[in-house]
Structure formats: C-alpha cells, structure tokens
C-alpha cells in the first residue's frame, strides 16, 4: 500500500512536534523513521496508526483519505517497544486475539495463527505464556500478532530497543526477512542509525519535527542534505572542523589551507566535514596534523589527529607506522568531504 503524507503538522499546545511533513512511501517498502529522541518520529507513527490525529495536513493510504479514520479501520499492524503481549494468554491466544475481535471462525483463526507462528519461528512454543519467552521470542510473537490479520501497513515502534546487542542484530535481519516474505509495507521507527542503515529501503531522517532527508541509506551517507544528516549517520561519527572560505579556498581555524575548493562563498564561516575513510596519508602535503593515538583494528588502523585544535579520525593501512606526537601530512579523497554553512548547516559542497 502506498502512503502519502501531505503537510502534516502536529501541535501539542505551544509545542510543535511535527512540522509540515510531506513524504510518499511506496508500496511494499520498508521505510525507517530515524532521528534523535524528541524528533517527532513516534508522534508521526502514532498519527499513522490513528492513535493521534494531525493538527493539519492529510494522510492517504493508497487513494483513501485516512487522516481522521480511527485506528481499527485503518488495517494496520502495530508492534511496540515493550511487545505489549497479553500476559495471561498463551502465544497462540495472543496471535489469535486480533482475529477473535474480527469474529473470524475459531478453526480458521487457529490455522492462520499457526501459519503466522511458523513464519516468525515461534511455532514450537504456542502453548507458553509470554513470561516464559525470551525478549526476542516475545518480539516475534508480537510481530506475528500484528501480521496475522494481514494488515495493509505494519508499524514498528523501536521494536529492538529492549533487546541485547546480539539479539538486536538477529532480530533486525528477521524483521527484514519477514517483511520481504510477506511484502507488507512497513514503517520502522528507531533512533539507531546502524539499525536503520542495515534494513531499510529508504530512511526518513527527522530533527525537531522537520524532515531532513528522505533517501536510500547509502545516499543519506554519501550525499547528506545538511550538516545534521552528516553528523547523525556514520560510525565513527563524521569529522568536523571549523573553517573559513577565502578566495575559493577552505581555510582552517589555524590558517592552514585544507586543500578543499569552494566557489561563491568567500568570507563565510563554514564547517568542513569529512568521513574517516576519506582521509589520505600524503607525506608531502602542506596540511599537517599531529598524531594523538593509533589503534589497530586488523587490516586497518584508526588514527586520531589534532587538526587545527580539533580531534579528527582517519582510517589508514595498518602497514603505516605513526609515532605519537608526530606531524604528518594529510589530504582528502574526492568523496565523503562536505562543506556546510556554519549557522544553518546548509550544504555547499
């Protein structure tokens, strides 16, 4: 099902949680709503599920205007961070419950629930209570319960936050597998960029209720729309140093020429941001940085430098040997280097 969001605004008293949000989500895709806490992503999800109604704007499911349609009539499946399983019911009863409400005959109910349990791999524990399951298993049951009524849209609200690191990776792959097998349009809310990068078809990155960028994960990383997007994505985080544009050259705070060229913004204060993998070792370069620390990580090593008073990191071949305190020449690759307006974060390069 295709989802169209048109100029959604949600205000709570004086506080604007979502501000003029527009997006089109294509049918069958897994789209992640990503952003730091308080960015309005859960509010957005609640408006999609019908728990909240927008102050302004329209929500369309295919061609139906569902802006003020109540939750139960939207045909959505919802999975919560705390699973929200009914503790007094068995796994089977939990999965059957949405069908019971729809008054599906009992035999069919159980058959469909069992099929769904197979899909999420909980078919061996149908008679257990949620309390007897691990977190990952509970989450699988919650997904089965959300999918059993064949929703048009599956909403997942930070479904992995309560799991430990290993289970989280396993479960996100599982969610992706289940989503691809069922082909259900899915919206996934998270604050974890790695999670978002690894499973999404598209990512919507939000900040303070405003959509920052809506793109494929790799584009988001390679071509951030603004400084916030660049800062938010990537591990280790992007390097960021203050700079000034003079005669088309990006000059660092300590007067060194970064070697980056930018036309048309002379005299402006900017951020020079670059990915760690975009740093090059250039012994002959005029741009010098002082080595602070080197840590070897197998075939690569990550080295932190003092560059114009800021700590920055770069990946290098582990055959290179740097002394602590040594001044080395560095340069940048063509990709993964950005210049942003210092105040607004608008991207110049």
């Amino acid at each position, binding site marked *: 099902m295709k989802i169209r969001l048109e100029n959604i605004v949600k205000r709570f008293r004086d506080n604007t949680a979502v501000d003029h949000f527009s997006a089109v989500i294509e049918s069958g895709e897994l789209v992640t709503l990503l952003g730091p806490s308080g960015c309005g992503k859960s509010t957005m999800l609640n408006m999609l599920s019908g728990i909240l109604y927008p102050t302004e704007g329209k929500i369309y499911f295919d061609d139906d205007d569902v802006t003020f349609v109540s*939750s139960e009539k*939207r045909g959505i499946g*919802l999975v*919560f961070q705390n699973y929200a399983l*009914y503790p*007094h019911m068995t796994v089977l009863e939990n999965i059957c419950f949405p069908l019971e409400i729809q008054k599906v005959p009992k035999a069919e109910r159980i058959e469909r629930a069992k099929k769904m349990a197979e899909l999420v791999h909980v078919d061996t524990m149908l008679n257990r209570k949620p309390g007897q399951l691990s977190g990952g298993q509970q989450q699988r049951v919650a997904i089965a*319960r959300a999918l059993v009524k064949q929703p048009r849209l599956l909403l997942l609200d930070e479904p992995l936050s309560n799991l430990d690191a290993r289970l989280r990776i396993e479960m996100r792959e599982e969610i992706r597998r289940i989503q691809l097998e069922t082909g259900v349009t899915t919206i996934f809310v998270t604050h974890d960029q790695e999670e978002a990068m690894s499973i999404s078809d598209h990512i919507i990155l939000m900040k303070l209720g405003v959509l920052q960028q809506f793109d494929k994960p790799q584009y988001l990383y390679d071509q951030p729309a603004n400084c916030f997007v660049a800062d938010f994505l990537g591990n280790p985080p992007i390097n960021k140093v203050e700079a000034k544009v003079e005669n088309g050259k990006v000059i660092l705070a300590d007067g060194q020429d970064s070697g980056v060229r930018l036309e048309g913004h002379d005299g402006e204060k900017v951020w020079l941001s670059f990915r760690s993998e975009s740093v090059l070792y250039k012994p002959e370069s005029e741009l010098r940085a002082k080595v602070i620390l080197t840590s070897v990580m197998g075939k690569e090593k990550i080295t932190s430098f003092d560059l114009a008073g800021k700590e920055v990191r770069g990946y290098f071949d582990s055959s290179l040997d740097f002394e602590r305190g040594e001044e080395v020449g560095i340069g940048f690759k063509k990709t993964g280097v950005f210049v942003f307006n210092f105040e607004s974060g608008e991207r110049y390069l």
Partner: protein
Amino acid sequence: MASKSRDTETQINKEPISIGRIIMYIVLLLGAVVMIFPFYWMITGAFKTWTEVNLMPPTLFPENPFNIENFVYAFKTAPFAKYFLNSVLALLGCIVTCSFTTILAAFAFSRLRFPGREFIFSLLLSLMMVPYEMIIITNYRTIVTWKLHNTIWALILPFMSSIFYTYILKGFFDSVPDSLYQAAKVDGCSDWKYLWRVMVPMAKSSLATIILLNSIATWNSFLWPMIATNSKDVRTLPFGLYAFMTEGGQRNERMMAAATIVVLPMIIVFLFARKYIISGMSRGGIKG
C-alpha cells in the same frame, strides 16, 4: 540478599545455640499463642459440657470431642440456619454487585478520558474520610424512605460500590502499560471487550484480594444489620449471635458453639486465600 541469608544459615550450623534466635522464636511463639488461643478456646469450648467449661483449673481439651450437643441447641433455639442463609445471601449480593461496579469504575478512572476525571476521583477519595457511623444515619433514612427497611436489600444496597476497592483496583489498572490498550484498540477491540478479556483476567489477584476483603467485611458487619433489620427473618449471623447471647443466658459453651458457627467459614476462606490477601495488600501498599 540471598547470599546473606545463606551466610546466616551456615553460621547457625556452626554454632547451633544462638541466643538471639532462640529469644526471637520464643517471642514469636508467644505472639502466635496469644493470637490463636482465643480461637482454640472457642472451638474446644463449643464441644465441652456445662460442667467441663466451668471446671477449675480449666481443661485444654474437651472430654468428648464429638459432643455436638451445643451446636444442636444453638440451631434449635435460634434460627442459625436462617441467619446463615441470610449472611450468605447478603455476602453474594454484595460481592457480585460491588465487584462489578468496582471493575467498571476502576477502568473508567484509570483508562477512559473524560472531563473532570481527576477531580471526581479525588472527590470520591475524600469521601473515604467521612466516618462510617455518619454514613449509617443517611443510609438508614434512604432505606426507610425506599421502604426497604428490614429486607435483605437493605443489607446489600449500601455496599454495592466501594471507593476503597475501586482505589485498589485502579492502582493495578494504572500499572498496566498503555501499549496493551493501544494494541487492542488498533485491532478493533472495544473498551468493553478489552476490559473483560484483558484487564480483568490480568487483575485476577487484585480482584481476589478485593473479593476476600469484601467477604470478610460483609460477613462480620454488625452495626448496619443491627440498625437496618429487626426481624429474625433477615438477621445475619453476627447480629444473630449477639441476640442469642442476650436471649440465651450465660451458658458459655453454647455461646462458643454459636460463635464457632459464625467464625468458621471465614477462617476456612482465609486459610485458603491468605496468600492472595497478603500479596494484594502489599501490592496496593495499603494497610487494611
């Protein structure tokens, strides 16, 4: 915590005579005896003959433990069977209606949104401060006006709802995460169905506590039945017992038998359900 208690255990094994522990057990034992002895005295006394009860020094055990003469007498002279039936009727009436209203009210105050919810609830809570004896007067006037005086309804009507039990149950309902409600709502579940299919089964132990406390209170209630009823046909056990004592003369063994009839059902209920009472009480964080 667990390792600490294990440490003390091993310590006890090393030196079996710990004076502090012995003193503690003696004190606890004394407390238990003080608590239990009146009940023991009552029950054994019910099986004794008149001479046996008045023996000096008193005996701890009846000569003929199968002597049910006193019970027979109690049932013969006073309509204890009728009293018993009345008590059971009043009890069932109170529990069924009160549990029902309590569940609905607790759900409304906990989950539904309506204007003035918090204000109304605090108003109700403040009513708990009005002394019972004062409410009795107004209740009596109501009952008389409605011409229900001296009927079983008079014993049920004033207790068909309870702020205190609503408060306990609301506490439990509040602790159920919102997401359960939202999950059910998204699936198209009505409030009514959600309440009975999800909330009530989850609140089983809180409800058991409420029903038990309510049973004990109703079973033992004395003042209200005494005021609201005056014929033997609608008397309940506690007031029946009181009447029996004043009408039956100073025959201790017979009074013991009558008292045993009154108390025994609740003792049995308590023995079976005490774990619910205690867990429910500690959960609510409220003293009875």
